[in-house]
């Protein structure tokens, strides 16, 4: 059953066509990989999906609703959470507070409730704290809860970004190069975490340069090159696709 459906997405920046008629479908419960050489348009596609960029034309359907033209916060509320290629945590807030911010959309205390410290505000705050600790435990950084986010190790910062995204209770978790800069152990742990997330009912869209991780983890993979989708299939078939090989290491010598 399709969860996210892109049809004929185009996006130009001045004279550069960053995305050229890209269509793809992510099914419920799937780990979907998106790979491609540098500058292929992966992150642009990501930003189009999450509402940061408006596509020039094309459709995006999430579940049964169209989310084209929605603002980033509306896309997040609709159920697509994301992480960033260059980690974007709230650096001067604690690890715990970072995750608590993630619960913003699913909670409702306004300034009135906060100022008068109403009973419902107190209850909600308690719930937010309990849930946030649960998410920190889920990704394995509960012991860092009171540290500032900027004091975390690189790997833990990546984990915190995932915890923060999960706290928005998404149906689709979009990860932009989560393994970048990680060593083999950390990548292994990340892989296990992503599998757990999928088992718990969240579909995953994964941009990654680590081909081994993609091949091991993903159910299906799409390959972008110069803004066009040149392949989409199970990892094994994509790996041997001549067009993919050409895109990555060039064609045969004349």
């Amino acid at each position, binding site marked *: 059953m399709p969860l996210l459906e892109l049809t004929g997405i185009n996006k130009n920046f001045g004279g550069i066509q960053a995305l050229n008629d890209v269509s793809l479908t992510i099914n419920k419960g799937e780990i979907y990989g998106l790979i491609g050489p540098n500058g292929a348009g992966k992150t642009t596609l990501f930003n189009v999906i999450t509402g940061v960029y408006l596509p020039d034309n094309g459709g995006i359907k999430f579940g049964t609703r169209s989310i084209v033209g929605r603002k*980033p916060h509306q896309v997040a509320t609709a159920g697509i959470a994301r992480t960033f290629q260059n980690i*974007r945590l709230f650096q001067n*807030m604690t690890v715990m507070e970072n995750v608590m911010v993630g619960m*913003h959309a699913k909670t409702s205390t306004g*300034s009135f409730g*906060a100022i008068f410290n109403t009973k419902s505000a107190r209850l909600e705050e308690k719930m937010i704290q309990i849930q946030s600790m649960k998410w920190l435990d889920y990704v394995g950084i509960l012991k860092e809860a009171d540290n*500032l986010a900027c004091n975390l190790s690189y790997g833990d910062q990546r984990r915190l970004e995932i915890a*923060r*995204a999960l706290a928005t209770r998404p149906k689709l978790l979009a990860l932009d190069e989560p393994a970048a800069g990680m060593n083999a152990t950390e990548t292994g742990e990340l892989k296990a975490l992503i599998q757990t997330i999928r088992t718990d009912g969240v579909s995953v869209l994964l941009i990654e340069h680590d081909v081994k991780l993609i091949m091991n983890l993903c159910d299906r993979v799409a390959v972008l090159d110069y803004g066009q989708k040149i392949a989409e299939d199970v990892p094994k078939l994509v790996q041997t696709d001549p067009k993919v090989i050409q895109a990555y290491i060039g064609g045969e010598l004349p």
Partner: protein
Amino acid sequence: MKHFVQDLWRKFTGNKRALFFGYIFLFVALAVLPFLLSNTVGLTWVRILDFALIYAMLALGLNIVVGFAGLLDLGYIAFYAVGAYTWALLASPQFDLHLPFWAILPIGAGMAALFGVLLGAPTLRLRGDYLAIVTLGFGEIIRIFLNNLDHPINVTNGPIGINKIDPISIGGADLTRTHELLGVSFSGAHTYYYVLLTLLFMTVVICVRLEKSRIGRAWLAIREDELAAQAMGINTRNVKLLAFALGAMFGGIAGGLFASLQGFVSPESFGLLESIMVLCMVVLGGMGHVYGVLLGAILLTVLPEILRSTASPIQSTLFGDVYIDPEALRMLLFGLALILVMLIRPTGLWPSPKRRTSVDPDIAKD
């Protein structure tokens, strides 16, 4: 030494009984402070204290916009002006309106909040320097409007200002007059001190509660990273407008109190320099930290006054003559103090405890 003080503080705040007596002591100290001052150094100092409390409220309002939400606002004094003029127009012989304070206070707060949203709405896409320039312009627009609204129809009396503004009066008792209560005589400055202290206390409670709430976290998130905040489902437009409105509201209340205490307002009191002064209170005290901002506001109001009253006598006794005009010396020392604080404590005199750990490498190592 640093650790010793920290340990002592932790032990103190950890002990419920000590904390209880600490609060009692603070309460009593704040209650007798104006009498202590008026009986030793004179009634003027109670008035200075009153102004310090008004500035503290103003700085706390600005702290919501600058410290929490990270929106650099250089025209904040405009909301102070809106509040002050709202009070002046609704309770003075100008239009012969004399509304009671409990009606004007919320009207002034509402007017200021409205102007906060009016300023906020067009600047939502701006950040940092650009936002600062636009808000600076807004502050000047308000001042120039007030300066020129004496024709074609006279609303504000222009540069002459509005005089004979009603003071706060409760049950017909004018609070700027001297009253006898239980055998103690309260002058106007004394009664105002207690009214202002109560309102400031409420402001502090509101600020602290807001900061720790869902809304406060959303503000901090926008300050830290706006794009990431949006990705968390935060409607940054609404949350920013809320910061502008709430911040302006406190400015408006402070402005109204200022007008009623002073009995007179003119556009002169709301210049760019005032905006910068309030911003200095926030930055010097510790941006984003409620108690730090409180400290900054009190220090920056009281210290110049101490200097003003001591600079001349000290010079006379030391050198036999007054060489530097106290007013010039004030700006000189103020500039020096700003530079020193920014060099030695870039996060302010009393930053929020968590932010300090991220900056001070000595503490981070422990």
